[in-house]
């Protein structure tokens, strides 16, 4: 019995969610193999080798993995799946896209968005926009699981895993990568930042001018509500909530955010929630640890200088 963890990379580095996925996989107390795929894996393999708890790093190097396509990664995983009783990935955009298809091809039901592995085949996952936590007993002979990365700590370095190259099946050729438009931000990524400050629609055109200085000072990621994104004040990829990014930072500062159910679903696992809103009846205060009823246009510059003083 052993576990296959699907890694994800960003450029020449592993994504933080891969470190968290490895931690999740240790719950089974079985040998763990970490599968990395790409067109140039030297740096990635060296990094992956060091993850504590990993037995072997499997490298699948091929030109067509420069921009990995769901169909090709599925083909790769299915080609080695018979060696594993457990297959795990992060519940990231790529994990969400690739894992259910792997499961279907093996005629196995996957369990997605797991936040806790309670027993070898018992999992906790949220549903109903985070309003319900379900405990699931999975009877499948192969456990295929995606985990919400923020629910697990990142695994440490200090390992020294063996690196093994695996054969790569040919590209399927039914889909093609055309292009990517990624925003290059100086700010940390939303789903792995230690501190997130987010704004609602009421910040209007001042969204960046008000939040940026504080985010820089705190080394925080910037988030936004759906209404704020829809109104064009913030970029799409800043959306936090059920249909955007689900986050669990140590500190979440909600500015001018009323606290719609869909937004709360994306933040409720944050360790400390601070709500700043001019409306004392805003639902966000029921879900926050600290509240400040105030006008955000005066409070945010104040907060910026208060942080500067210390």
């Amino acid at each position, binding site marked *: 019995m052993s576990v296959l963890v699907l890694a994800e990379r960003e450029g020449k580095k592993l994504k933080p969610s891969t470190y968290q996925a490895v931690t999740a996989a240790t719950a089974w107390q079985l040998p763990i193999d970490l599968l990395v795929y790409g067109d140039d894996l030297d740096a990635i393999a060296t990094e992956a080798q060091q993850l504590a708890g990993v037995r072997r790093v499997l490298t699948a190097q091929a030109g067509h993995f420069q921009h990995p*396509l*769901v169909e090709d990664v*599925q083909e790769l995983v299915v080609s080695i799946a018979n060696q594993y009783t457990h297959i795990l990935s992060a519940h990231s*955009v*790529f994990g*969400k*896209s690739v894992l*259910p*298809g*792997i499961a*279907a091809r093996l*005629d*196995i*039901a*996957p*369990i*997605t*968005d797991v936040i806790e592995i309670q027993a070898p085949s018992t999992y906790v996952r949220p*549903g*109903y*926009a985070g309003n*319900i*936590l*379900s*405990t*699931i*007993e999975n*009877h*499948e002979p192969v456990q295929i699981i995606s985990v919400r990365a923020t629910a697990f700590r990142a695994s440490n370095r200090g390992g020294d895993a063996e690196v093994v190259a695996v054969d790569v099946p040919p590209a399927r050729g*039914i*889909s093609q990568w*055309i*292009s*990517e438009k*990624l*925003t290059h*931000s100086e700010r940390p*990524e939303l789903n792995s930042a230690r501190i997130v400050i987010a704004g609602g629609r009421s910040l209007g055109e001042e969204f960046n001018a008000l939040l940026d200085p504080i985010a820089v000072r*705190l080394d925080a990621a910037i988030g936004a509500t*759906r209404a704020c994104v829809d109104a064009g004040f913030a970029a*799409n*990829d800043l959306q936090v909530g059920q*249909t955007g990014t689900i986050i669990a930072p140590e*500190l979440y500062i909600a500015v001018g955010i009323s606290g719609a159910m*869909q937004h709360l679903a994306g933040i409720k696992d944050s360790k*400390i929630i*601070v709500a700043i809103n001019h409306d004392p009846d805003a639902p966000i*205060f*029921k*879900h*926050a*640890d*600290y*509240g*400040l009823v*105030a006008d955000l246009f005066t409070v945010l510059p104040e*907060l910026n200088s*208060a*942080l500067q003083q*210390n």
Partner: protein
Amino acid sequence: MKVLVAVKHTIDHNVKPNIHADTGQVDLAQVKKAINPFDEISLEEAVRLKERGQVSEIIAVSIGGIEAKDSLRHAYALGADRALLIETDAQLQPLAVAKLLKAIVAREQPQLIFLGKQAVGEDYGQTGQMLAALLGVGLGTFASEIQLNGDQIEVTREVDKGTQTLSLSLPAVVTSDLRLNEPRFIKLPNLMVAKKKAIETIAVSELDVDLSPRFNVISAREPQQKPGAIQLASVQELVAKLRQAEVLQ
């Protein structure tokens, strides 16, 4: 060209479900149900393709009990040409749903298959990906923009830090994200006409698919709520509290 749109009749996205005191499970018996919002977006996209002359027929398919006809009528009112109900009262899991949809694809031979990126409710987010894998066709998840070009479809997808564009050979499966479009407002006359349209019913037994559950939801609970915010009087007090809690470095 035919388009198939999967439609789930599910808990209304504004409703917060309760846990049944006796069963310890989510109580869905009395909750308000509606078409899954992401499926409505899929239908809207199919209708727009038809209005541009790129699609000849839109088939909406739902799986469930008789009450799922409500969502299929909604699909008719939005502009579907034909509606199918795979009738069953069983609580189906995503793998079984994907297999049933595969059987419908074999029957109808659509070139493009739309599903929502997830259904509101259990939020599994699996069915579209499973269907594509079972069919052996290309997949574009989290679509925010699509363009049909002959026997290819270009799908722009929402990824972690922006968007990615893929080109898929048809037939293909696309799962709709929120920003693909904004579904049109349904006019009352359309809804009245939709009520009179026939919905073809297919018995689940006709499709010869193993529907047995693979996992059990053994219990459900509500997450722990915070007791409510401690109201602070000033920014200085807030900064002091955060330093105390050691979240500011």
